[in-house]
């Protein structure tokens, strides 16, 4: 894409600027947003420049060799995330809008790419990474500075290519329900892992020695994410031979992304017209299994309970909010004990494990809300309340109990370093889970509420969030309080608890669950139509 497209890039740039300007005209809120964005970008630029220039001022090549690949990779990652987080905010150059214009794809690519380079994020990135040039100049003289300048330009190209390709792929992908489901789950996973990841990172940094960090930094420096940012340092460090190789690595990555982008771009443009045309098209897989065998697993009972539990099990996986809840629980379950183990040397691990047992039942706090008015099916077929409650709890336990076992293993083997305590910890978790279920099940019948339509990935719960969440929070606290006898017994009994813990915990949890399920079932028998009305969105 050398000369011909260059002639026609101008209109794209003018279009982008015009759209940006018109978007601001007469809209104070947007202007405020723009100014805030500009301030943030300026802050980022200054902060980034300062950070990247510091190693040069300190004359510390070693710290630069760690900071540049990591900082640069973080920048690329940021550009990757940006369209995911702000998708739909900046659609000023949505490819679908060019679908009807007779533009060659190359022109469109070049135009949109250059237009993306003109904007605050690109300017801020360039300004921030200019600090790297500064450092390279101080460490290795003009040669190194020149190499680093080339590096940061390549890096910026990579950033923009990543972001455009992801945006375009997203525009195409989000048109199908499957992908919107996936986006919802991914969002939940990212949200769930932010906290633990931070703790884990801090814990790792606490323990890691400088050598291994350097080693990782060097490896990152040879990947497309970090290669562009380290060429100046290579010159300064006498490894000038590395520069062409790294530049090629980055350019190949950019080329690959552009190729991918050009493919998704075509579909993004066509997608505007063909969206939804595949609705209802048959996905067939003829393996001769009858409808019942398709619903139930082989060893499942062919009964009402079996059907209810099978449907519920499939829903925990196929319904996005439920899957998101499961994944969040899994992440929390593994990382809560781990992160404290790094922080405090393992003493708090077991306490936090109990917390996981108390969080687990929360997924059922609004169990009828997940499926909404579909509950009418069970109501119209006259399913008794206890059967309903037991089947749902059983399906939840099918996912949760293995997870609790995993938590017990992680706590015992990795975090606390006491393998012999694993069975007792598992018993304690089950006890907490059982008490939690006993409290949550009646809540789910009594305080069911409608959730927003699941077909939109970023739909937020409609108002009154705290009021609706209060009962389940109460149930969580109640679960911890209710399982105190088991926890206390664990501390008081000492060594004997290692043997007693598992049976005692299981029995305690099961008993609590049976009482709660009995209550909830009876309550449901009296309130079925009211539950349906409560979860049907109006």
């Amino acid at each position, binding site marked *: 894409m050398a000369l011909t497209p260059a002639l026609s890039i101008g209109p794209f740039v003018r279009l982008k600027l015009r759209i940006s300007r018109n978007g601001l005209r007469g809209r104070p809120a947007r202007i405020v947003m723009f100014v805030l964005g500009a301030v943030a970008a300026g802050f980022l630029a200054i902060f980034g420049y300062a950070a990247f220039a510091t190693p040069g001022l300190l004359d510390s090549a070693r710290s630069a060799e760690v900071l540049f690949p990591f900082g640069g990779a973080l920048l690329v990652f940021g550009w990757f995330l940006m369209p995911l987080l702000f998708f739909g905010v900046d659609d000023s150059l949505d490819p679908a809008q060019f679908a009807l214009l007779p533009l060659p794809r190359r022109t469109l690519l070049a135009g949109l790419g250059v237009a993306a380079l003109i904007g605050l994020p690109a300017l801020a990135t360039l300004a921030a990474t200019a600090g790297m040039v500064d450092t390279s100049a101080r460490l290795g003289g003009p040669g190194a500075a020149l190499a680093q300048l080339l590096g940061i330009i390549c890096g910026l190209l990579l950033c923009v290519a990543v972001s455009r390709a992801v945006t375009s792929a997203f525009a195409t992908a989000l048109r199908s329900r499957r992908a919107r489901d996936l986006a919802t789950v991914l969002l939940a996973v990212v949200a769930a892992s932010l906290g633990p990841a931070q703790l884990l990172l801090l814990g790792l940094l606490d323990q890691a020695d400088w050598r291994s960090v350097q080693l990782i930094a060097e490896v990152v420096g040879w990947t497309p994410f970090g290669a562009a940012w380290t060429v100046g340092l290579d010159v300064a460090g006498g490894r000038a031979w590395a520069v062409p190789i790294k530049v090629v690595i980055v350019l190949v990555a950019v080329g690959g992304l552009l190729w991918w982008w050009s493919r998704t771009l075509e579909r993004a443009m066509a997608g505007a017209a063909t969206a939804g045309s595949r609705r209802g098209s048959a996905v067939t897989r003829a393996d001769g299994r009858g409808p019942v*065998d398709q619903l*139930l697993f082989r060893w499942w009972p062919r009964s*009402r309970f079996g059907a209810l539990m099978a*449907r519920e099990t499939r*829903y925990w996986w*196929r319904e996005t909010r439920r899957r998101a809840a499961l994944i969040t629980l899994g992440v929390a379950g593994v990382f809560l004990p781990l992160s404290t183990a790094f922080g405090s040397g393992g003493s708090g691990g077991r306490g936090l494990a109990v917390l996981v047992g108390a969080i687990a039942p929360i997924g059922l706090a609004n169990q009828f809300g997940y499926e909404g008015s*579909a509950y009418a099916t069970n109501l119209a077929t*006259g399913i008794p309340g206890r059967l309903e409650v037991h089947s749902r709890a059983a399906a939840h336990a099918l996912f949760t109990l293995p997870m609790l076992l995993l938590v017990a293993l992680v706590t015992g083997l990795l975090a606390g370093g006491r393998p012999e305590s694993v069975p007792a910890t598992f018993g304690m978790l089950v006890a907490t889970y059982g008490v939690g279920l006993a409290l949550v099940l009646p809540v789910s019948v009594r305080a069911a509420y409608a959730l927003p339509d699941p077909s939109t990935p970023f739909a937020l719960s409609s108002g009154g969030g705290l009021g609706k969440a209060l009962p389940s929070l109460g149930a969580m606290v109640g679960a911890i309080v209710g399982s105190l006898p088991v926890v206390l017994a664990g501390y008081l009994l000492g060594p004997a608890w290692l043997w007693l813990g598992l049976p005692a915990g299981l029995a305690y949890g099961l008993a609590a669950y049976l009482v709660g399920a009995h209550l909830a079932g009876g309550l449901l028998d009296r309130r079925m139509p009211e539950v*349906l009305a409560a979860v049907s969105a109006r």
Partner: protein
Amino acid sequence: MSIPAQRPPSEGGTAAMSLRGLVKRFDSRLAVSEVSLEVPAGSFYGLLGPNGAGKTTTLSMAVGLLRPDAGQAVLLGYDVWQSPAEAKSLVGVLPDGVRMFDRLSGPELLAYHGLLRAMPADVVDQRARDLLDVLELGVDNRTLVVDYSAGMKKKIGLACALLHAPRLLVLDEPFEAVDPVSAALIRDILQRYVAGGGTVVFSSHVLEVVERLCSHVAIMSDGVLRMHGPLAEIRGDRSLQDVFVQVVGGRVATGSELAWL
């Protein structure tokens, strides 16, 4: 709870559905007011009314999905609210504006319904295959119901309602969003079902369908049952359209207004 045998001959004289003084209030609005209706066994009963007339509310109360503020609903001799298990086992329901368990595939959804009705697995399999075949939904179609088109959703809903061979079918807007070919198919199935002794109650606001299919008609508006009885009596020598417009109180263009058109 047992599966009704292959549709026993209907007892003469008993009403298949009997509503007595049903009342439902949403906040302060009276949605359904004192609706009483006798549906004779073996009839094809059409419930007509403009949007918002209270048809869905009435049918929901009749099949036990919505608790009435007052009144009684008796299905085939069983009170829906006193002995729900018996009443519900004899009735097939196609609700409107209600989601199905749509993260299941069509065959899975049918199997789910069948097992919830406590039918033996082999019977469920055989009937589900028949229904999927006749309604052209495909026995091996693994597409989730959520990805079905509107017409396919109606058809799978109807299949779920038919699966346990109920003696009474309550269908809310069964022809909405259904293409003409599928609509003809559904009409055929329902007509054969009634000819075999079953009873169908369905709501619609498409007069032509009601006029073609029904033996009995009831007309609702503003939550009140305005008229009900055999189609011939209701219609008299006029068209159903004229009766409907007159009863509901809509205006008929006289030709004097909009004269500039």
